[in-house]
């Protein structure tokens, strides 16, 4: 019966059949990027101001901070962890960078101080998760509160103004490319390299996929998890310094809710909360989807309350399409094609 159907399909529409197969493969593998392209096309028609180099540079700058945070979340979530404290730690690290700059006048030292603060805070996260075996949700929730308190204590709740040349880190450009975008590229490449070309990355996937199997195969679970948190801390600290220099103020209340934005970008980009699944390129695409959404609605002058409703709906649709594409691919591999065509698995 299945052979008759297959022969019939090949006889009737060979070219269409091949094209459908190509589309099916492409959409399964690259669904999130297809969504991104569709968004660009639709947005270009909706607003003449959308499709321009300046606007894309704008969007890239606007999402740079949360994208850097999202790469840290990606590493953690793939490994079965997460970080709810990245917004607060970002504020603390950024403030530290600002205060060090005020004291030294040297931007590089200030940025190192910010990164070090992020690493230190995430070292604490990692110790809580590995040594004290707190669930990552609880450990980083505690750090969320503590880091925010520390940030407010540092400046008695008051912003720090007059950042001078420190702003070049977040507002400058090299060869016409805004510096925050350059940092995003560096962090993206680093994350991609870690996940795809290092033993650390393989171990992170293994731990996220099945921690007990990873332990049985000899992977040092605690050490790998701690390393993931330290890398996340470096990203968070970097984001803090960039953020404060971009807004030209040390703001102790900065970053509130940024952890949700970072998680959203990761999840839209295909990172799975169950662990073991995710890509750096997917996270980048997810971040741009979120960025495009906000940008096109601002360009169209859509009221902010309506924006939030639409944003939630489109995010849900994007993730649903991605999940459906992946499910279809999984069914095809297992030989259960919903189109009725002959599959590769066992005949029923």
């Amino acid at each position, binding site marked *: 019966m299945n052979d008759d159907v297959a022969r019939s399909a090949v006889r009737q529409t060979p070219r269409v059949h091949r094209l459908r197969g190509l589309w099916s493969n492409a959409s399964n593998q690259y669904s999130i990027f297809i969504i991104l392209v569709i968004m660009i096309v639709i947005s270009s028609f909706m*607003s003449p*101001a959308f499709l*321009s180099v*300046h*606007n894309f540079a*704008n969007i890239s*700058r*606007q999402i740079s901070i949360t994208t850097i945070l999202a790469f840290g979340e990606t590493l953690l979530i793939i490994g079965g962890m997460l970080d709810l404290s990245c917004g607060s730690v970002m504020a603390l690290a950024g403030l530290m960078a600002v205060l060090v700059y005020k004291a030294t006048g040297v931007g590089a030292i200030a940025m190192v101080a910010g990164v070090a603060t992020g690493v230190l805070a995430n070292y604490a996260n990692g110790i809580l998760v590995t*040594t*004290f*075996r707190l669930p990552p949700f609880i450990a980083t929730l505690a750090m969320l509160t503590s880091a925010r308190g520390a940030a*407010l204590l540092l400046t*008695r*709740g*008051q*912003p720090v*103004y*007059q950042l001078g040349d420190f702003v070049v880190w977040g*507002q400058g450009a090299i060869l016409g490319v805004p510096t925050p975008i350059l940092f995003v590229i560096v962090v993206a490449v680093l994350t991609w390299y870690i996940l795809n070309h290092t033993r650390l990355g393989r171990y992170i996937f293994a731990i996220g996929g099945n921690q007990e199997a990873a332990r049985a195969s000899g992977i040092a679970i605690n050490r790998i998890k701690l390393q993931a948190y330290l890398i996340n801390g470096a990203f968070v600290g970097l984001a803090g310094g960039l*953020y404060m220099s*971009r*807004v*030209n*103020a040390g*703001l*102790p*209340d*900065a970053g*509130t809710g940024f952890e949700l934005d970072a998680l959203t970008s990761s999840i839209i980009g295909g990172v799975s909360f169950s662990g073991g699944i995710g890509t750096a390129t997917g996270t980048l695409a997810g971040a741009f989807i979120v960025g495009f959404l*906000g*940008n096109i609605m*601002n*360009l*169209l*002058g859509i*009221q*902010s*309350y309506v924006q939030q409703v639409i944003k939630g709906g489109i995010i849900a649709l994007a993730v649903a399409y991605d999940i459906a594409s992946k499910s279809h691919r999984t069914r095809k591999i297992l030989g259960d094609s919903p189109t009725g065509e002959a599959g590769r698995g066992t005949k029923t």
Partner: protein
Amino acid sequence: MRFGFKTLAAAMTVALTTAFVASDASADAKYTVAYLARSQRDSFAAWLANSIVKQAAKFPDITLTVFDGQSRNEVMQSNIENAVQNKFDLIIIQPYDPAIQLGPVKEAMGQGMKFVAANPKFPDDSIPYVDANPYQQGGENAKLGLKQIPQNAQVVVLMGPPGNPHSDGRREAWQKEFFDKRPDVKILDQQVANWNKDEGLRLMEDWIQAHPKIVAVISMNDNMASGAIEAVKASGGKVHPLVYGVDGTAEACLLIKDGLMTSTTLQNANDLAAKSVTMAHDILTGAKPDLHQMIQAKLYTKDNVDECIDLHKSIGDIK
């Protein structure tokens, strides 16, 4: 590693005891006053809280304790209830949402608690208050805008949190004192930026893309205005709008001095704090203060901004 729960419990006990003892340092003060701040995160609320603490220190018979409302109504309510439970003599409260905090405050008043509302007041004049008039704050800028904003100008508007009475009051002033008198002026867009600098920055970046001819930015506070100015600076000369704000923050004063911002009205937290704490002390000691007091908003432009800068230097906001 075996986790020493006993060690942790002992450490927490020591920490909490130390905190309790430290907070009870002025046990011999006659009156205990709770200051319920709407938040200690946004710059103005933090300035007010710090000022309240400084003013309270001038009254040796008052012990002041500050509680952070975290910009959340349920936390404000808990703080009111806790202050009543802990038998404070008086509460100075900076409401987050006066309409919502009114109920718990009235209930506490029914149980004998005394209140002073500090910026903003409640929609019930039986509760003593010291406030700044948001209509006046917006109106002073709007009247200046009448003279400065050219014919057929295109403007954008930045709003504070939805339903916030100060944001709405300032916007009402702009409507009546400016937009109703200038139908030629077009509002390109009006969005909520929640008092935040980074939200003002992001909105202005997008507006500059969509509307190259923005003549003025009308902001309900200085934070959002300064964020918009960062976007203007980054645009490389694409737009040079007039920028109006409210609060008279240190940053705004410096931006006006540099010619990047047009004007602001000072909401002097030092004045608010001084009057609030004095009113609280008078109520506690049986004096009969004026229970409804307003501070005046002063307009600062390039002509007189040095005065504002000097104020901020004196309180350490500008070094």
